């Protein structure tokens, strides 16, 4: 293994380690925070930090594995495409969850200090 590949390998492993830390933080946040809307914020932490960073880590790690031949480029590309798709779909999912929960009044909104949406605004 050449030195450049070793650098790729190290960066990949480091990104995966940071990602697992954020995953744990997100899980603690989901258990700890008081209301549904606050828990969605913790979910975003474990989505971006906990799944996008490790995917990028795997992509970089796969470039370093020279013995896999040309197949490693496909692994890298698949990881990057998954990152793109998660970046699009995960926030739109949490947006529609929050919108549905707010409009149907199923989740308690407290604690909430200021609500601009309830002051005479039409909901589309």
């Amino acid at each position, binding site marked *: 293994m050449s030195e450049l590949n070793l650098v790729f390998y190290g960066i990949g492993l480091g990104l995966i380690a940071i990602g697992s830390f954020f995953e744990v*933080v997100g899980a603690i946040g989901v258990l700890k925070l008081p209301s549904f*809307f606050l828990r969605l914020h913790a979910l*975003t932490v474990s989505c971006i930090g906990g799944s996008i960073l490790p995917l990028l880590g795997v992509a970089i790690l796969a470039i370093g594995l020279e013995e896999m031949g040309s197949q490693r480029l496909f692994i890298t590309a698949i990881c990057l495409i998954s990152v793109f798709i998660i970046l699009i779909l995960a*926030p739109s999912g949490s*947006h529609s969850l929050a919108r549905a929960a707010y409009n149907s009044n199923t989740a308690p909104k407290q604690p909430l200090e*200021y*609500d601009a949406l309830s002051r005479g*605004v039409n909901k589309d």
Partner: protein
Amino acid sequence: MKRFLNKLFVFTIILVFFIISTGSFKYYTLVIGVIVSAITTYLFESSIVKKTLRLYDVLKLLYLFKYIVYFVKAEIHAHLELVEIILFNKPIKPAIVAVPYHVESDYGVTLIALTVTNTPGTIVLNIDTNSKLMYIHWINASTFNPDEARLIITSGFEKLVEKIFG
């Protein structure tokens, strides 16, 4: 041919995705991929890209690069703040604030909303296309005023998004 660049753009993206998802680079894959992406482009091109693309739109890739750098910086800040809130019990002040936006196109609005939702600490709750307001649930609100909130949350993204999508 009308809107040739649009068709070429969509066609290339789908062809590249097809080849990557099969995991092989043979003539067979290439021929089938060209057929499949031609059909998909014919069906979906007009609904995906509304604007007619021009050749100098390639320069917008530079803004996209700048946008990614900005996005990564914002992500790191927001993550550190959320870690502080969750692990070290930093006091929070949740609020729903109204934030105005000035982007015209659908893609611009979507990109701003997705970026705001992607940064931990802010979630777009609802969007009002008539009065151009976004309602954002903010975990640690420092202000309730729409214009000040816009300066803090979206104005940095919005300048770049306006240059990319217009």
